[in-house]
């Protein structure tokens, strides 16, 4: 057998069914073999970045299904591999397991600046969980198995395999033998502590029982360990409200009576006020990043912190915990829920405080959403998301791009289905939505998938419409077009005296773009057309694109300015000094 055959055998052994990618000189042998085998479904992206996000989509969406998949993307050496970089860095920031396989120039010419040569391992090292470059054909299978183990064990992350072209073609010795079933990775430095220790758990229970003003944090780890239901049981048992990180959304229904919604920079007033006044934060699978905490010196000053986290290097990185539990979220909750010492308390005064906070913006928001249009009559994104939520019952899968519309989709869609919200969080990569949605749809073909985009981000990867056309992917594509890079514009409105530097943007005729790819298209300019257009997209079989003409002056509030504390939360839109649009 040759290197390429061993590679594909190992991928098949690991349950890989789909490979996303783009061929080229240094990876051709593998593609050729893949074609001969016919075992894998190959999906050709129109740019390698697209392939990386499709692989992410598959990993993210399938983890809660009966058939969890690790997304695999493939690219050639040099520019092919470099085009994967953003997607890999994004997966690393968001702890998404993924395996990226790149061809490399032949070993004989490595480090000679050969045609299409890049130091892939050198580039990928700081943005991936692990990198490998097998130089001998008998290392390939073992390396693939180790790569999958590392990518999926503990905190997930992307792993890169850079395989020189000659190694792909070399015949392995006749006496080569690899026993997949008996394979155990030899990684003496790889720590994985899934089981919570008894002592901190007991301390945690004491703190929970004693607390007067506790808040539960639901982070990405809850989604990744499929612990949403357990978290809900736990919250209901102890009667403690739950605030979500961006990636914790959809772990349990967003309209659950204990839900405070999203926390942080664009989080709800109730979540942020509760955190500010809390005496205990019980955080599951999150990392207290700056968009969540704001100014650290002012963050939850009177609160004890219980931090449950699978990655020990995240514990104490930003916020010092009172009790640190380095373990898997599911296993920790499993033990916690059934702890006989754990008690629920009514905490009437706390509930009263939270109920008051819920009212701070509720009426304003309701009014805005009901009005549905800005001063110049253009549509509001909030309203569009709100209508989408109502018409789909909050049960569809939402894949958002990055920007204002992302925060709207995070705040105003009423998530009911576990693991139904997908977005680029840590890296905040514009252009992720369209390709990621393709991966999501592949993982969950029976569910409806919406790709929600701004006009800016959509144009970063709109070449993937070609993939959608070719694969016949049934995606509902929304473009909330306000003619600006909306989130940056919002900052310019609030902090740069309304000078809109580098944010106005001319878009192509999206209708013509859609028709070039044979995708039906509707442009929505009037409030009355919003619901019929969404309904049409729901009823339509196959891909459809809806463009909404939105009000550029709409802002997402509340907002905690970057570097500010929770006391600096902006809840009313200030009068702009000189707003021209």
């Amino acid at each position: 057998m040759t290197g390429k055959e061993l590679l594909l055998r190992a991928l098949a052994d690991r349950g890989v069914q789909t490979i996303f990618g783009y061929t080229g000189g240094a990876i051709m042998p593998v593609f050729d073999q893949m074609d001969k085998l016919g075992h894998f479904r190959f999906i050709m992206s129109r740019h390698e970045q697209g392939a990386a996000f499709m692989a992410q989509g598959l990993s993210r969406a399938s983890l809660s299904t009966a058939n969890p998949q690790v997304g695999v993307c493939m690219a050639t050496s040099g520019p092919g591999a470099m085009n994967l970089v953003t997607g890999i860095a994004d997966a690393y920031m968001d702890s998404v397991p993924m395996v990226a396989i790149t061809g490399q120039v032949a070993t004989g010419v490595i480090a000679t600046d050969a045609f299409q040569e890049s130091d892939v391992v050198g580039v990928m090292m700081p943005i991936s969980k692990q990198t490998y470059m097998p130089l001998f054909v008998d290392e390939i299978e073992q390396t693939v198995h180790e790569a999958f183990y590392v990518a999926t064990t503990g905190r997930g992350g992307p792993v890169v395999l850079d395989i020189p072209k000659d190694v792909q073609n070399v015949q392995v010795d006749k006496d080569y033998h690899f026993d997949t079933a008996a394979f155990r990775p030899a990684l003496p430095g790889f720590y994985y502590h899934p089981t919570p220790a008894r002592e901190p758990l007991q301390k945690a229970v004491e703190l929970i029982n004693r607390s007067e003003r506790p808040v539960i944090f639901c982070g990405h780890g809850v989604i990744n360990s499929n612990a949403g239901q357990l978290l809900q049981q736990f919250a209901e048992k102890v009667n403690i409200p739950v605030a979500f990180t961006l990636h914790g959304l959809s772990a349990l229904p967003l309209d659950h009576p204990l839900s405070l919604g999203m926390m942080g920079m664009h989080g709800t007033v109730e979540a942020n006020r509760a955190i500010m006044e809390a005496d205990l934060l019980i955080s599951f699978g999150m990392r207290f990043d700056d968009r969540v905490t704001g100014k650290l010196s002012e963050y939850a000053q009177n609160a004890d912190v219980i931090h449950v986290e699978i990655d020990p290097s995240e514990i104490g990185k930003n916020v010092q915990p009172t009790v640190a539990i380095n373990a898997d979220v599911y296993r920790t909750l499993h033990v916690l829920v059934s702890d006989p010492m754990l008690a629920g308390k009514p905490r009437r005064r706390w509930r009263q405080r939270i109920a008051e906070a819920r009212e701070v913006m509720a009426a304003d928001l309701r009014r805005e959403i009901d009005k549905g249009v800005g001063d110049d009559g253009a549509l509001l994104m909030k309203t569009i998301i709100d209508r989408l939520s109502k018409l789909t019952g909050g049960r569809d899968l939402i894949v958002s791009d990055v920007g204002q519309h992302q925060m709207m989709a995070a705040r105003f869609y009423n998530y009911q289905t576990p693991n139904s919200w997908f977005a680029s969080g840590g890296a905040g990569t514009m252009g992720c939505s369209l390709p990621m949605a393709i991966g999501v749809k592949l993982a969950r073909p029976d569910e409806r998938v919406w790709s929600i985009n701004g006009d800016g981000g959509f144009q970063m990867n709109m070449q993937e419409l070609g993939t959608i056309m070719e694969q016949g992917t049934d995606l509902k594509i929304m473009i909330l077009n306000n003619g600006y890079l909306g989130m940056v514009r919002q900052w310019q409105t609030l902090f740069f005296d309304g000078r809109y530097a580098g944010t106005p943007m001319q878009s192509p005729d999206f209708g013509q773009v859609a028709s070039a790819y044979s995708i039906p298209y509707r442009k929505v300019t009037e409030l009355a057309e919003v619901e019929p257009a969404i309904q049409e997209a729901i009823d339509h079989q196959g891909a459809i694109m809806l463009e909404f003409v939105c009000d550029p002056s709409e802002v997402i509030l509340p907002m905690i300015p970057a570097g500010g504390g929770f006391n600096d939360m902006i809840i009313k839109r200030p009068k702009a000094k000189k707003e021209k649009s």
Partner: protein
Amino acid sequence: MKRRAILAFMLDRPGVLQKVSMLIRKKMYNVDTLTVCNSRKEGISRMTITLREDDEEKVQQILSQLEKFTEVVSVKELDTDHSYWREAAIIKVEADDEHLESFRKDYTFEILDHKSDEIHIIQIAGSTRRIDAFVKALGEEHIIEIARTGVTALEK
């Protein structure tokens, strides 16, 4: 700023040194000294890194992020009270026997080579401060070239 010594055991594989130094750069430190050698266990290297940082929590962060690398088997900080920090130096000096012998009572060193009456190559080992003192005592004007290994450390 306080000088710190970090001791790490790691798989002896290509790229591991790059990962370690990359992390230290990412955390915005400059490496003071770095020494690597084989450990007693085959396939495992032993690395001693020194850098400057006052904040205990930041040092803890470096340790936990180093530990996160799959190749890193164990990491700890060695403090000066509970460990020996030593380095060695090879020095080419322009000095006669008499001048050199005058340091014998205060310093232990070995003459490796005797190029001429005037040129000697000597070797000395000791703490960083001890070697600094020796170099100062010899007199900068006598030194042609000096090679220092950087710190290696061992727990008491």
